[in-house]
């Protein structure tokens, strides 16, 4: 099972754990994650302005090279996934954006959204399979009560991301079950952590993040997992003293597979 892999900038700096444990787990699962050569920043925030083309180009480059390699593109960071998947959708459905982006890039073959973008979790669910994952688990996290924290970028806009029901998702809970732990469903699991607001208005981010952790705590979670470096940052720094551990889901995966 071979995939192109897009780690993204943060996974090379602040969020090395998210990347490291994912790679180690893939070795254990027999999945070949081939990092894309010469990838660039995804654009970081999905360009909201309809006429902004330049900020989409680096995502298109990554998508086009995955297409040329003939493999599906696996992402890991929620934010990168959101940007790349939305840009891919634009290239597929918006002829104007596709034309202008291709005019800039002058690729050998113009890119029209042919690549398939998979989040690492989707790769686990749809390609490896949670049942197969369960069989590979050597160190089941029995007894651990883990809350899934989806945040906002992983699932929304739900029609484009098409990963799970954005308001009542199950993919991370199913993952938690597969690694032998008990999922804790809590109300704020798909609410925003505060995101970049922490730079401008820390108090607001503190309010959002602590609401998330308190909600998880109230339902009995000892740990909360996320796929997003910014969510992890906010929950850890701004989440108050709920006494809930916040880790990347890949760390628990590696632990369960005995490769941590």
């Amino acid at each position, binding site marked *: 099972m071979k995939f192109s892999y897009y780690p993204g900038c943060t996974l090379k700096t602040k969020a090395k754990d998210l990347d490291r444990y994912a790679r180690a787990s893939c070795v254990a699962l027999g999945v070949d994650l081939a990092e894309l050569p010469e990838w660039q920043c995804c654009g970081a925030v999905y360009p909201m302005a309809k006429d902004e083309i330049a900020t989409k180009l680096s995502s298109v480059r990554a998508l086009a090279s995955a297409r040329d390699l003939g493999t599906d593109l696996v992402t890991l960071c929620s934010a990168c996934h959101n940007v790349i998947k939305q840009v891919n959708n634009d290239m597929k459905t918006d002829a104007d954006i596709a034309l202008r982006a291709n005019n800039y890039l002058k690729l050998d073959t113009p890119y029209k959204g042919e690549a398939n973008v998979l989040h690492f979790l989707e790769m686990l669910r749809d390609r490896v399979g949670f049942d197969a994952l369960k069989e590979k688990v050597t160190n089941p996290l029995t007894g651990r009560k883990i809350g899934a924290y989806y945040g906002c970028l992983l699932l929304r806009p739900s029609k484009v991301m098409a990963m799970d*029901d*954005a*308001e*009542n998702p199950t993919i991370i809970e199913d993952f938690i079950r597969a690694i032998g732990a008990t999922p804790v*469903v*809590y*109300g*704020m699991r798909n*609410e925003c952590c505060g995101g970049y607001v922490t730079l401008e208005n820390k108090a607001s981010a503190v309010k959002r993040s602590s609401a998330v952790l308190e*909600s998880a705590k*109230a339902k009995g979670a000892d740990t909360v997992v996320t796929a997003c470096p910014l969510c992890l940052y906010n929950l850890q720094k701004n989440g108050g003293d709920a006494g809930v551990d916040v880790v990347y889901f890949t760390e628990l995966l590696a632990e369960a597979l005995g490769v941590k």
Partner: protein
Amino acid sequence: MQRIGVFICHCGTNIAATVDVKAVAEALGREPGVVFSTDYQYMCSESGQTLMRDAIREHKLTGVVVCSCSPRMHETTFRKAAEKEGLNPYMVEIANIREQVSWIHKDVAEATEKAIILGRAAIAKVHLNKPLKAGESPVTKRALVIGGGIAGIQTALDIAEAGFEVDIVEKEPTIGGKMAQIDKTFPTLDCAACILTPKMVDVAQNEKIKIFSYSEVESVKGFVGNFKVAIRKKARYVDEEKCTGCGICTEKCPQKKVPNEFNMGLDTRRAIYIPFAQAVPKVATIDANYCTMMKTGKCGVCQKLCGAGAIDYKQQDTIVEREYGAIVAATGFNPMKPTQYNELGYATCEDVVTSLELERLMNAAGPTAGTLLRPSDKKHPHTIVFVQCVGSRCDAENEKGKPYCSKICCMYTAKHAMLIREKYPDTEVYVFYIDVRTPGKNFDEFYRRAVEQYGVHYVKGQVGKVVEENGVLKVQASDLLSGEQLHIDADLVVLATAVEPDKSARSIATMLTASMDTNDFFTEAHAKLRPVESPTAGIFLSGVCQGPKDIPETVSQASAAAAKVIGLLAKDKLTCNPCVAESDEMLCNGCSSCEKVCPYGAITYTDKEFRGPNRTTLIRRVASVNPAVCQGCGACTVACPSGAMDLKGFSNRQIMAEVDAICKM
């Protein structure tokens, strides 16, 4: 050669402002066969018709072309006028130069040219028109009402009042519909059961009305005045004739864990049940999905206890064939299940309920005997949040909801809020709305009372999220007027979910060949002028099946539909449409293509003798059309591979002549 008169209508300025009517009259006057051509301000007026009649007489016209509005509007008017002068009405043709020309064009030169072309096509057709004579068909003096809610009940009572027989087919074990589940009605706050159940009794006692409860329409054949309907009486495993409705079986049945649909699943009933105390007919029904006897063969408690010997576990569905002159669709609605609105927590939080569930929670005959208790812990709620427009007024992009306004929610939410504040002054009640829409007699006054006298907090804005935490519903919402984010700790959240047509409506519409819109509401024949009739002759519409309505409007429409039915049943004979299909037996090759496409079952095949070469006799299978059943849709004429099938009044030659006239530049 025909002698044709052409009449161009100005329609005030509707046509004349965009079409040079004089130029059209002049140009069409030069067409072959046209002996008279003129224009007039209002052709449909008395003097316009006189002008036409005089011309028919003076110029000995054999055909007439009126260039005016759509034939749907005034074709009948002009045909009647021509008939008075002895001209066959089917020698009159309309060229629609209003809807198809003046209303959609801006450029006068272009519009005038198109009007001339359409007029020329109509003239070409009239050249080939033949006088047609309409036949007659008898009328079965009985009506069928599909659906026994307040709409169906009112329609049936009104038809019966006029002395005609009516059958009501209701798929549930009792009539009464949604209104039976409602607690109080706006804007007068009278109890729904108190005004509905006497009407249900009237239905039961009326000699002209027959109720087929727990029954569904299986098939519909025939046409206006002569429908043949098969009704499936579903097995209820209780003999309706013998059951006295004493209710002993429903008290003693050991299977107690069946979700009670009448109470919206908020409590349970037995496997043998009577939906509610005032049910009509008051007859028990066994739910075969839950009955221990039916599932395992071991129980039989109800049979042992029934003094009337009414229980029959072996009962089968039966089919009843009945004939009707008219059919009324009164199939009603259901509130949408808000399960796809996961952000509002309906699927995950027990204390998030729909408005109809709240009706049951507030009803004296409901699961809490009328005390408002929240479902999860049966405690009295102090803070109650209402969310309006759940699933209504969604944009087309949002596949989860409906594009339309459900119309009744603003009023019933105001009612709920007011009733709760009245009965429990210790509560805080919030209503989140997009707009408050309360047109209707005494409606806005009612809503203002909720705000001004009862202190209900109306907040313009939408609720974005409801989550449960430690028994409290955390409601996140935005107040659009102040621009603030609101966080409310609520005990109960009530969702005013969209009205959607009953699931059975589409299959019934298909059986009736009645048209529907994209939301599965029945379409009326004319949105303004024929609101209670379907475009299909003999099919009438009553209540919410045509569009969202409150009770007063439903009852008005139900009576209007009854008036139309009475008008039809009062006739002894109906004039048929003479524009029906006809098969040329010499050309027919007996392939059955026409029979397969005919939606009315008007085409049959017979073996007929024909003279062959050398005095031989051949037997060939050929199509024949029953003119009383044919509705003149023309599907068969297109399907026929040998060109044998033709439609009178719209023959292939006539259509081709029109096309030729349009293409001839």
